[in-house]
Each structure stands twice: as C-alpha cells, then as structure tokens.
C-alpha cells in the first residue's frame, strides 16, 4: 500500500493521498503528499473510521483540479464515493482509490452496553426495520418520540455524514425547523433529515456513532432507504444515475415503478 501510494505521488498520478496514520495511539486521518514523502511509512489502514470522502469533497471544493487519492477502509466508502460522483461533488476522473476494505475489521456490533431503560422506552440500536413490522403505531410512536426527545441538536449526524454537502441545510431553515428550542422541534427535525437521506444514505453508521444521545438513526435511515428501493428500485450507493429525488436538471426523475 505504501509503495503504491509513494509511486503514485512521485509519478504525479495523484497530488494528495488521504489515509490514516497512527499518532500517539490514535488512528487519525492524514493527508500524504509529495512534500511529506518520508511520512508515507506511517500510512496504515484501521478500524477507526472517519469520513475520508468528506475530507476529499472539501479539498475538491477548494481546488477542483487537485487529483486526490483515497483509502477505502470500509465497503461503505465506495458507496459514499458513488453518491458523491452522482451528485457532482467529486470528479471520478480525479479520484484514485486503494481498496483495503477486505482487510478491515468489522465494526463493533451496535447496541453493546445499552441500558435496560432504553429497551423499555425506546428503540435499541440492534433493531432492523423488519423487527418493527409487527408493532402497532400506538406502540412505535411513543418509542420514536422518546428517542427524538433526547436530541441535543448538536447537528453531529449532519456534520459527520459523508453524503451531506449542501451549502444551505434545511435543518437550519427556520421555516422548516423552529429555532431556539431544545430538544429541537420533534419529530420534524429528525424527519426532515430522514427525508433528505432518501436516495443518499449509504448506511455507513457514522451518524449513529456520533450521536451523543444514542438515537437509533441508522434504523430510521435504513427504513427510508428501503422505501426508496421498494418504490423506485433505486439502490443508493450502487447506482450510477441520479436518485429519483433530484429536482435539478431538465428532466424529472421522480418516477415510481409500475404497481
């Protein structure tokens, strides 16, 4: 991996490579370039996951001509890249990838160390959408509201999301989500975000990991993703065409499949 990256940097195939390095026991993202070729020996993969695609998007926004190399430490990294390509946030011709996702350790099972109270009142992070199918609305609604009411409005779910790139965010739009309240206006705050995750969320789980209130966001966005797949047969992250929710451009793409 190191040899490949240093070769690419020396040849000028890429200008910058975003990977991980070990700093005092913390595996943190690091940008390798031809200016710091001697650091290339520190390049490593790891089970800690940061949204490297998001870093790449930010760099590309500043300098669109830069050729960026990326380490794919997990399978969802490639899906996130596909979504960013589709939405024109990154140029596939300027991205080179090194796929290390097969060697990556599986992320820890969610729900470890959950309090019994959460099982009683809320929704466990181990649940999948199918688990909720048998439950009535009268049972589910208060559970979701309990989860949402814990929200600190830290915007961490949005900030860490690799596929959130909008300049103006609906969550900060005072007409959509009332400002100045804690918890934020529920459930609208979370549902606005959930609806925006339709056709975008690649189920990487970073939002849930970043949530200080342990809200089962992944469960919510998985359900949204399932609906998109059922209605439009759109596989987020796998497809190379724009999601059915694109409102820009000259043709409407919102076409449900025939029933």
């Amino acid at each position, binding site marked *: 991996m190191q040899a490949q990256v240093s070769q690419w940097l020396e040849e000028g195939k890429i*200008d910058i490579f975003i990977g991980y390095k070990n700093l005092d026991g913390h595996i943190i993202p*690091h940008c390798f370039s031809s200016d710091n070729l001697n650091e290339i020996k520190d390049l490593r993969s790891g089970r800690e996951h940061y949204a490297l695609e998001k870093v790449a998007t930010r760099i590309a926004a500043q300098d669109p001509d830069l050729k960026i190399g990326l380490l794919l430490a997990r399978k969802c990294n490639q899906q996130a890249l596909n979504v960013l390509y589709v939405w024109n946030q990154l140029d596939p011709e300027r991205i080179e990838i090194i796929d290390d996702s097969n060697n990556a350790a599986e992320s820890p099972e969610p729900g470890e160390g959950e309090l019994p109270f959460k099982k009683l009142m809320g929704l466990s992070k181990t649940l999948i959408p199918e688990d909720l199918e048998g439950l009535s609305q009268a049972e589910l609604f208060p559970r979701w509201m309990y989860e949402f009411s814990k929200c600190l409005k830290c915007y961490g779910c949005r900030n*860490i999301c690799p596929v959130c790139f909008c300049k103006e965010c609906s969550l900060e739009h005072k007409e959509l989500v009332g400002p100045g309240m804690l918890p934020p206006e529920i459930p609208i705050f979370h549902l606005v975000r959930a609806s925006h995750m339709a056709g975008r969320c690649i189920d990487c789980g970073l939002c849930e990991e*970043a949530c200080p209130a342990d809200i089962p966001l992944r469960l919510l966005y998985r359900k949204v993703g399932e609906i998109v797949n059922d209605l439009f047969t759109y596989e987020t992250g796998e497809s190379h065409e724009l999601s059915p929710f694109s409102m820009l451009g000259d043709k409407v793409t919102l076409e449900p499949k025939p029933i």
Partner: protein
Amino acid sequence: MDCKFVPSVCPYCGTGCGVLFEVVDGKLVGTLPLKSHPVNQGKLCIKGWNIHEFVNSFLRLKQPLIKMFGRFVKAEWDETIDFAAERFKEIIEEHGPDSVGVLVSAKTTNEENYLGQKFARAVIGTNNVDHCARL
C-alpha cells in the same frame, strides 16, 4: 495544498472531549470528534462541533482591552499587566486583600488553576478563591 489533522482537547467545558481539527493551508476549517478518545468516544456537543468557527471569528479578541473613560481601548500586554497590577495594589492598600477574589475555571488547565489559587493566596493574600461553575 497542505491538509492535516491535529488532535486536541475541546476548550469549552471541563469534560475534556477529544477533538480533531482539520487544517487546510494553515487555516482551521473543521472540527471532528476524535473517535478513539476515551472521554467522548467519537461524540461531541454543538459547541465542540463548532470550535473552528470561534477561532476564525472576526469578533474574537486578539489583544487585551483596557476600559478608559467608559470605553474599551486596545492595549499591549505589558501595558495591560502593569495597569492591572497597579490597580490591584491601590485596591489592596485601600480596602485590604480580602476585597479581591480570584475565580478559576474549568476551561483552563489544572496547572493554570493551581497558579490562580497560588496568585490569590501568596501574592494578593486572600482566601477568596472560587470556581466559575458556582457563579
């Protein structure tokens, strides 16, 4: 393009969450939670998520201000420290050392808090030491 990630500790409260600063071309552009930090375990509150905004804010004070004739006037550090020392001396001479109190903070380091109480007890001569969390 020079892009690097600098681990640090959130300066807001006394919890001590680990943060990771995203620095592009020498400018702080983003803050991320440090995933492997034992205190916050990859989570942050809204203040921690926005550290880069106050660092780059145009409202940020970069030099001390002295209040003169009812207005704050920009001053140099040496001048300000002399001015403060002079006024402290005057107040202590006139009203005694117990007329001064020192408030330390959770946002500063342990060592700075130690220096704060040392300053109160050894230099000013008062036991009026308290913490900002009790204000």
